[in-house]
């Protein structure tokens, strides 16, 4: 498959001994044929990669200035903000970078849900993505603890206490997580160690994710397999330039927050140093955890609440086998498409509920939204059998060439089953 050629003597010398240039060419170059009809929702994978690189780059230099000790961590963060050259910028890039990373990844996931990217033969690709999400969540949580402000401390306390719900061994496990009998310096030390480690584990899983991706290539908005070379274009220059354009748009939004609203996603309470003797009146996690937090609080049973919260993510591992419809793209699934958007709205609603205190109407709404969250997967399962998909076009290039949009190929080949 490699048609890589170069006239450069140095490149040829290296290529002969270690074929890295043809490897890159096959991965992100002219040698990687990609569906010709990818839309802008396909930009978010490369954007997530950029966000990961930004987080690691800024994180490494921040770690050079940060002190992971309970009595010095908070002050070392203030020193970064006031004394370290560009420290304010690096910290704001890193803290807001987390939010943007999650934003990009959530859009990436919803894109996969809409276009059926998790379906055969991309189940493993999808599962690796869920693993990355879980690693991101652990990394983000432990990073949030490091400034050792009030929100950091009480987030650490609440989240580690989730494990106390485990029957029989819960308390021992929590003591083990803490390295003591409460969240304290040993906890901070190990969180710092793991916060530095896990991003590189993420890099490793991302490599696997991309490896699995390249086995069959990207899914596409129509969701049918490419029928031949006419359905594909080289990744470079077509998608390198499209991804680069996406980077530019991303950086504009990112810079706007960093320079004009750097504490938009933050909590003022985290500028108060950790106090083990006083819980803030209203503690909330970062926005990207709010829906899970709402699910946790919706269930009036400690163990079941924790199970539901973790289950809300773990269920994605089996989604490829819940959704049995052979049609990938929601473009050809008129009913699934509507339930998809209801599900998106439900996730946003859960986030809204998670940001509010668990009382009165919010408690009721939270419970209904949680119930619907899981009901959605039952609906998806049933739709596999009940929904009648619209006819698929016979090829990727057909609707493009006819210029009539998705419906153009309707008559050509109805109901293609994979």
């Amino acid at each position, binding site marked *: 498959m490699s048609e890589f050629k170069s006239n450069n003597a140095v490149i040829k010398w290296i290529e002969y001994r270690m074929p890295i240039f043809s490897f890159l060419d096959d991965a992100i170059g002219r040698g990687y044929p990609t569906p010709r009809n990818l839309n802008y929702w396909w930009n978010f994978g490369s954007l997530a990669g950029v966000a990961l690189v930004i987080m690691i780059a800024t994180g490494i230099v921040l770690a050079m200035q940060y002190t992971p000790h309970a009595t010095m961590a908070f002050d070392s963060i203030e020193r970064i903000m006031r004394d370290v050259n560009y*420290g304010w910028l690096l910290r704001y890039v890193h803290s807001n970078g987390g939010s943007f990373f999650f934003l990009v990844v959530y859009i990436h996931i919803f894109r996969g849900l809409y276009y059926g990217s998790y379906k055969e033969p991309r189940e493993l690709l999808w599962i690796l993505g869920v693993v990355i999400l879980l690693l991101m969540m652990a990394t983000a949580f432990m990073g949030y603890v490091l400034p050792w402000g009030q929100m950091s401390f009480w987030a650490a306390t609440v989240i580690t206490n989730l494990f106390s719900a485990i029957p029989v061994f819960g308390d021992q496990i929590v003591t083990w997580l803490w390295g003591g009998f409460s969240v304290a310096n040993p906890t901070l030390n190990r969180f710092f160690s793991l916060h530095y480690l896990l991003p590189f584990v993420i890099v490793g899983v991302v490599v696997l994710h991309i490896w699995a991706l390249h086995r069959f290539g990207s899914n596409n908005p129509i969701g049918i397999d490419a029928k031949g070379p006419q359905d594909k274009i080289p990744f470079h220059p077509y998608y390198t330039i499209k991804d680069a354009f996406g980077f530019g748009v991303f950086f504009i939004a990112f810079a706007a927050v960093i320079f004009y609203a750097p504490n938009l996603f933050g909590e003022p309470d985290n500028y108060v140093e950790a106090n083990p003797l006083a819980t803030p009146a209203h503690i909330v996690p970062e926005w990207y955890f709010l829906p899970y937090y709402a699910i946790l609080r919706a269930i009036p049973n400690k163990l079941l609440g924790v199970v539901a919260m973790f289950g809300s993510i773990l269920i994605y591992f089996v989604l490829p086998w819940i959704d049995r419809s052979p049609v990938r793209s929601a473009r050809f699934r008129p009913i699934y498409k509507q339930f998809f958007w209801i599900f998106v709205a439900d996730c946003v609603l859960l986030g809204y509920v998670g940001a509010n205190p668990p009382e009165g109407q919010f408690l009721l709404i939270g419970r209904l939204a949680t119930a619907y969250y899981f009901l959605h997967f039952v609906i998806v399962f049933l739709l596999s059998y009940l929904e009648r998909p619209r006819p698929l076009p016979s090829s990727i290039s057909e609707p493009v060439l006819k210029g009539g949009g998705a419906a153009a190929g309707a008559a050509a080949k109805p109901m293609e089953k994979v």
Partner: protein
Amino acid sequence: MADSASPGHSGDGETRRDFLFLAAGALGVVGTVAAVWPLIDSMNPAADVRALSSTELDLSPVEVGQRITVTWRGKPIYVDHRPQKEIDAARSVNIDELRDPQADEDRVQKAEWLIVIGICTHLGCLPKGQKVGDPRGEWGGWFCPCHGSHYDTSGRIRKGPAPLNLHVPPYEYLDDTLVRIG
């Protein structure tokens, strides 16, 4: 569609595409450098470190013949209250014979007070000679134990691998006995 992408107008389309390619590439390089610079500059001394960049020193308790060490920016500063014999030794040397030619008069502000950075110019060890009983080398100044550099009573390199004299820090006399280093 084909028309707009075609480089049909010989040269014209080619140069415009080349120009756009180079301009976009150049802007990308500038943007990358601008983005990477804060990462690099954050490793330079921070404001709190820079704020500690001067040290004040009272010379009045230092006896003739006594050597003391103070720190400035985390480095040892050797202060030598030189007896007349050491001053004479330092000033009687033929400067042209020195590896790093420098007159003693150019290395001190007051003849009896030699103030130098006590770091060997070879590879950064601290030369011996500050304490009573330390080896002072063949010229009675300082002797570096790591690789055997000998410094004279003006802190000048006389023998051994070091290329330069002990550096003189920037300093000024605030009054007769008060010195501010840095």
